[in-house]
């Protein structure tokens, strides 16, 4: 069970994640209200979401299909019948006083994902409705509720406790993120709450046969915080156990400002949710035909895309992996190479473009770079209009202003000088001004060749076509 490279001070962390994913659907899980983020408070609310007396839920088939997609993507078993349960608890942002969820018959069971070559099992993934949002800091003396989120479909993906380190947890989460965004199951936006994560953390000695008592850390909302929260929790538990204390089974909250987890409630105060089958929803069969039709309409999975990129674009495994890490980049790449050289495009996306994105902590969609313009940049390099060095400057300008490649080149006179006559004149002048070096070169100092290239580049502000400069210089100096 234990892997020694993940031991911390001789303790083996054991981690399981529960990932809540808001599904991309037109409407909510059980009501015809729109499923959207960022609208004015309480504008996306139907009678059903308000929990008015006499209203009834009707299952959104679109959400069911999203669940099936995830099951297919993780090689899981898909339930034959959709059965929902009620989870009963009182909270002001839960208008009905219960949440409709799937306790006993999750839509997805026994899935698996591969994270850096290791298989991490998915215990189940079930559909449920999201609650509304309570806000306590908007007004001094009252709390207010926004029900736009009430009834939004969620898929809760529960892993087995197969994860052994905080960084592995992050990689697992990234894998889930990759799958759901690839398949348009969710936009996976953690900062907007469309992907949230609870972590179950315990520690044990490698020789122990049973897991230690676990604490559940609730509602962690970024990859970075997942790693920090788990690491904090591991250290906290080690400290307790090494002082001969006992870890309590409890729910904890991660405070990203103080970088610590704090107790929310212990087991004795755990809610009794009084689950029972929701009588308003009749069991719905998931037929083979439905699963087949979902399968037929399903987008490519990350691994499939990577394989295809290796085969049809002749990319190496590393490049294909980096480009396919997220769907947006992969789509971007495919658009770019419609009109541009594949290897050069890959090199520039993985290198300079990624560097810019990382530096500004942005994704492609947020940036001013679009595929068509970027494709033109690559074409200009290929057809020798600009050199690689100039291309970097052009890209900088595109990043800052979103300007068209041709406009940048024109307005700044950045075209490469590939006119042999013009270059010959420049070379002539430089050789005349540096007769000492010419003589030295001719007497065997080959290294000086670079000096002449540098002088030409300096004279042309880097715009001289380097290949042509080499060729002409060799001819003149021979």
């Amino acid at each position, binding site marked *: 069970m234990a892997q020694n490279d993940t031991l911390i001070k001789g303790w083996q962390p054991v981690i399981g994640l529960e990932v809540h994913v808001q599904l991309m659907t037109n409407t909510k899980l059980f009501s015809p209200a729109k499923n959207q983020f960022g609208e004015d408070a309480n504008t996306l609310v139907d*009678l059903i979401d*308000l*929990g*008015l*007396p*006499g*209203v*009834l*839920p*009707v*299952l959104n088939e679109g959400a069911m299909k999203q669940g099936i997609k995830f099951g297919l993507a993780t090689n899981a078993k898909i339930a034959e019948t959709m059965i929902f349960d*009620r989870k*009963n608890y*009182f909270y*002001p942002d839960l*208008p*009905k*006083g*219960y949440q409709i969820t799937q306790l006993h018959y999750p839509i997805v069971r026994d899935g698996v994902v591969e994270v850096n070559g290791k298989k991490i099992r998915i215990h189940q993934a079930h559909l449920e409705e999201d609650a509304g949002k309570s806000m306590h800091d908007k007004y001094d003396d009252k709390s207010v*509720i926004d029900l736009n989120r009430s009834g939004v479909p969620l898929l809760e993906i529960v892993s087995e406790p197969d994860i052994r380190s905080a960084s592995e947890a992050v990689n697992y989460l990234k894998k889930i993120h990759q799958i759901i965004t690839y398949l348009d199951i969710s936009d996976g936006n953690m900062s907007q709450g469309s992907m949230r994560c609870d972590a179950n953390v315990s520690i044990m000695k490698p020789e122990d046969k049973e897991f230690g008592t676990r604490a559940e850390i609730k509602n962690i909302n970024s990859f970075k915080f997942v790693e920090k929260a788990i690491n904090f929790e591991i250290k906290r538990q080690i400290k307790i156990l090494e002082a001969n204390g006992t870890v309590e089974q409890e729910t904890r909250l991660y405070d990203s400002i103080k970088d610590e987890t704090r107790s929310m409630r212990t087991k004795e105060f755990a809610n*009794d949710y*009084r*689950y*029972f089958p929701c*009588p*308003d*929803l*009749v069991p719905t069969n998931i037929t083979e035909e439905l699963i087949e039709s979902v399968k037929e309409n399903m987008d490519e999975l990350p691994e499939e895309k990577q394989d295809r990129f290796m085969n049809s674009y002749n990319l190496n495994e590393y490049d294909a992996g980096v480009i396919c890490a997220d769907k947006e980049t992969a789509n971007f790449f495919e658009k770019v190479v419609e009109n541009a050289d594949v290897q050069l495009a890959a090199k520039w996306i993985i290198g300079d473009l990624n560097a810019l994105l990382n530096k500004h902590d942005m994704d492609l969609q947020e940036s001013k770079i679009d595929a068509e313009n970027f494709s033109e940049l690559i074409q200009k390099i290929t057809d020798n209009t600009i050199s690689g060095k100039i291309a970097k400057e052009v890209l900088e300008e595109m990043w800052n202003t979103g300007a068209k490649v041709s406009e940048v080149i024109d307005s700044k006179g950045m075209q490469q000088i590939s006119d042999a006559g013009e270059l010959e004149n420049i070379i002539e002048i430089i050789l005349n001004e540096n007769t000492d070096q010419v003589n030295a070169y001719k007497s065997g100092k080959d290294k000086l060749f670079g000096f002449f290239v540098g002088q030409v580049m300096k004279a042309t502000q880097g715009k001289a076509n380097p290949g042509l400069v080499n060729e002409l210089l060799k001819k003149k100096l021979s």
Partner: protein
Amino acid sequence: MNFKQQRDNFRAKKISAVEAVEESLRKIKDDQLNIFINHFEQEALSNARHIDNNFDDFIAKPLSGVPIAHKDIFCTEGLPTTCGSKMLENFIPPYDSTVVKNCLDAGSIMVAKTNMDEFAMGSSNETSYFGAVSNPWNHDLVPGGSSGGAAACVSANLTTISTGTDTGGSIRQPAALCGITGLKPTYGLVSRWGMIAFCSSMDQAGPFSRDAFGCAALLDAMASYDEKDSTSTKRQDTNFEESLSKNFGSLKVGVIKNIQELDISEDVINAYETSKTVLSGLGHKLVEVDFSELSSGICSYYVIAPAECSSNLSRFDGVKYGYRSKGEKDIANLYMNTRSDGFGDEVKKRILIGTHVLSAGFYDAYYLQAQKVRRMIKLKFENFFKDVDLIFMPTTLDQAFEKNRKSDDPNRMYKEDLLTIPANLAGLPAISFPNGFKNNLPIAGQLIGKYFAEDLLLNTTNKIQEVTDWHKMTP
């Protein structure tokens, strides 16, 4: 006057919708029995005028020009819907229930909403926040419940049709105690959209009228497939009124073996035996069935119904609508005091029972066990119906009882539903009709049919009513 006469008069232009409504409202305003929670003079008259002005559009509708009273459990857009509770005393829904809408489309005019046991929990109409309803036959007696107001309304001839709901007998028992006809349809025939939920897996709306004819016409209006209710059934429409004149031939009717063992009053048994001879006289064959196991249904019912109710009534928390206790400083107290003050004792008792039977450690022993019994009862009925077309039994153990008499003894009160509950547990249709009279009080019997055999139930009841006069008696 019965439903058919009233509708015929409208169709023959002998009486306008406005006149029918005015007459009904006059009687409603004079009501001494506390039958109504609200009546709607302006809305009703304006609706009636609309129907009169568009006579041709409405003449062929099943309920054309007939005033109707709805149980106050059905949401009515812009008009109060209390469910018999302080919790919803001032609640005005922003939408119509499907039943109310269907009845409106069918040409009826809602004149009032009827009193009921709070959230439909009760068998005597005494748990209503708005006070008990008196039985039109004897004002010291209860009309039954929970649709007590709706049954009394038709019995006292304030309207000729009314709607009710039946979760454990709430249509059939008050129909029996008030001497009218009432039908609980197959679960899923009538949409539950907009009907305030008590026990979602059993709640079913149905019609009251003096006779099978009125019930058939009202059911024609009420029944519809509704995509807003996932438990409503998509099926071919049956015209129930037309099916009254169909000939179903000689039927096999199951009758109760050893009925003396069931703690049923002598008068009720006598009426039952008389009805058996009526059925035989109509050419039907009687087959004895062993009903003894079905009486375990009551235990199952009083676990499942409170369990579902405890969850269904969670939404009444003072946060969004309805009653809210004043001056609370924190959410826990707001919940506690709102629900303590807003609900009556019977409702609170059932919420507590329901919460208990769903709790960790008790779920298997109570809720799960009750579901097993429910399944067993369903199977038992399926077996019965291999041999018989209908089952006939009394509706109640006894006739109408005095107010306050049984309210102190919950077990006796719950037992009131012994004969009605099995059909709810199985989701089967059942119709109660008057079949005797003693001590100036009505007695009733009920027929239970196979799923969606409402046409057969109404047809058979109609045939019985062609040769008997019990349904014609009025207080």
